[in-house]
């Protein structure tokens, strides 16, 4: 009996991670080895006695129950300004936003702080001056592409390419949302102009598909070209690596996610690995544009403002991935989904996810992991937990990070590269290797 005839795929994983410098075909087991170098799999210490496996069990303990709260209201926000307009009790504000998000009425103002466009300790006067300067700066950059003659643009293929990509994507970004629907909608012009101006702001990056998805909710909230531009710039500071050429940002995050998942749910990770899915490619879209396509537009606003608080830990979005996967693993394993079905299943979760449920679960996971002693260093590094330091009460400790929207790109990059280094090290050494079992 022949049930299905499948074609064989060669090189796909190898190329994805290593580029295409080598094109010859490789047998699957060799590909797995190569992949193991990039994402170290479960390593077991066989040093002591051959035939025996030393497995270190890490007890994660039970996952604490957490509750979500009401969104922060406009009145509450205003109460947290001093006479000159400085925000006060900032850690408390951030914690409140983390726990419940923001009422829509206050988003336009609060997002500017969360994204780092406005410094938290600035006075109203200072912010007005800042906005004046930033307005000048914006229009200076906008004029740069606006004033190019047709002849000049003929000789500037990169700008031409950016423009054609932007025009294509603007016409297909959130067109079912009332803010962007219909022909000749002025919001589309703003979307276009901001993205074009961003090309002048960062010509090396220019425009990459996905960026219009990141801008659209920001423009929707700001309803102002200049403010939306600068908030977008701040958001792009965090997301920049995702769009750079070898897609290193997404690859690093996939590796980090894999590390987290192995700690949280080794059985599930092993299942995914057995289906050639251990590198978690099915999370690509989640990571590239921060769940923009997975949730309803309103839920995206909520999720993003919560993440921009930088709480409760670094790379919280990876724990959100873990939370979603945790809810799907039973189905995936019970139905014995293979590579294709897993991808399809995860892809089709789009618009079926409940943002509050995900946030609740992800926060629970964060507390659970943070409460765990002897956390492997790579995991602590990813989540930004201090290593070698005993952490006492977690729920009441409040935010430790300073002002600003979480880790800045350089810090992120450092954290990523150190984790990668660590992983590389631990996979190349034959010494003490530890398997995590939850």
């Amino acid at each position: 009996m022949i049930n299905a005839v499948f074609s064989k795929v060669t090189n796909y994983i190898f190329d994805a991670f290593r580029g295409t410098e080598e094109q010859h075909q490789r047998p699957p087991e060799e590909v797995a080895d190569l992949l193991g170098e990039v994402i170290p799999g479960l390593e077991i210490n066989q040093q002591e006695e051959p035939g025996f496996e030393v497995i270190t069990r890490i007890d994660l303990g039970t996952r604490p129950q957490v509750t979500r709260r009401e969104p922060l209201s406009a009145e509450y926000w205003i109460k947290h300004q001093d006479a000159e307009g400085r925000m006060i009790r900032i850690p408390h504000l951030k914690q409140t936003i983390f726990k419940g998000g923001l009422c829509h009425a206050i988003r336009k103002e609060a997002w500017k702080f969360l994204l780092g466009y406005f410094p938290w300790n600035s006075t109203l006067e200072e912010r007005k001056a800042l906005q004046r300067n930033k307005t000048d700066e914006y229009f200076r950059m906008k004029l740069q592409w606006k004033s190019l003659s047709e002849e000049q643009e003929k000789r500037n293929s990169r700008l031409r390419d950016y423009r054609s990509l932007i025009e294509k994507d603007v016409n297909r970004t959130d067109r079912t949302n009332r803010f962007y629907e219909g022909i000749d909608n002025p919001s589309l012009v703003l979307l276009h102009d901001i993205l074009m101006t961003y090309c002048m702001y960062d010509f090396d990056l220019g425009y990459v598909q996905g960026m219009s998805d990141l801008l659209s909710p920001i423009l929707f909230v700001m309803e102002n070209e200049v403010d939306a531009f600068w908030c977008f710039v701040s958001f792009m500071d965090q997301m920049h690596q995702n769009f750079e050429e070898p897609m290193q940002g997404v690859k690093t995050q996939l590796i980090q996610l894999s590390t987290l998942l192995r700690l949280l749910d080794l059985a599930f990770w092993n299942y995914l690995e057995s289906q050639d899915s251990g590198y978690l490619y099915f999370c690509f879209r989640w990571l590239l544009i921060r769940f923009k396509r997975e949730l309803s537009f309103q839920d995206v606003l909520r999720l993003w403002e919560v993440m921009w608080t930088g709480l409760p830990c670094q790379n919280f979005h990876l724990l959100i991935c873990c939370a979603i996967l945790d809810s799907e693993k039973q189905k995936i394993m019970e139905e014995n989904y293979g590579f294709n079905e897993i991808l399809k299943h995860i892809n089709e979760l789009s618009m079926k996810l409940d943002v509050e449920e995900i946030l609740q679960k992800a926060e629970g996971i964060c507390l659970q992991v943070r409460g765990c002693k002897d956390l492997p260093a790579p995991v602590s590094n990813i989540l930004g937990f201090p290593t070698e330091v005993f952490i006492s009460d977690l729920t009441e400790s409040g935010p430790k990070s300073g002002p600003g929207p979480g880790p800045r790109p350089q810090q992120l990059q450092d954290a990523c590269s150190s984790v990668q280094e660590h992983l590389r090290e631990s996979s190349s050494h034959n010494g003490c290797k530890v398997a995590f079992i939850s």
Partner: protein
Amino acid sequence: MQTNHHKERLYKILVIGDLGVGKTSIIKRYVHHNFSPNYRATIGVDFALKVLNWDQETVRLQLWDIAGQERFGNMTRVYYREAMGAFIVFDVTRPASFEAVTKWKEDLDSKLTLTNGKHVATVLLANKCDQGRDVLTNNGIKMEQFCQENGFVGWYETSAKENINIDEAANCLVKHIIASEKDMLQSEVSDTITPQLEKDKGGTCSSCFRSQ
């Protein structure tokens, strides 16, 4: 032959080509019978299922709509595995998207081979033919010859907007997929009736299931 026992077949079909050539639109037209100029840009991959009746059998086509942006390229190629056929799409109004066709084909063939060592059946779609035929007429390209030289089993001028030739192109692809499937079955059958004992090879159990 036992092939008639199948009441259902499932084929994974890739839809690839440059950004904005109309891959998503072709799929939406084929599966949902409608068209919008505002479909979102695909990030990563999207799926659609088309069910056909084919010689009293049910054929399910799982269409994989793969993002065209070059930068995602080395991430999205993982989706090629286990596909049985492909459409490569270009936009007749954009010469660059046609120039990219050979690149897409080479990429596909280098990453995906059937168990009998052959390439998957691929049909070339010249989309947006309602908007002109510049690429096809101006360059003096002989499409039949181009298809032969590049290993396409056929080509169609299509319009997702005007619903031109999309069913025809899909039928052509399915026909070739079924043919190549039969071809593979025959090669497997011939393998089983001429077993050879090769002591020197000494493979493990898992290697018994490998085709080569």
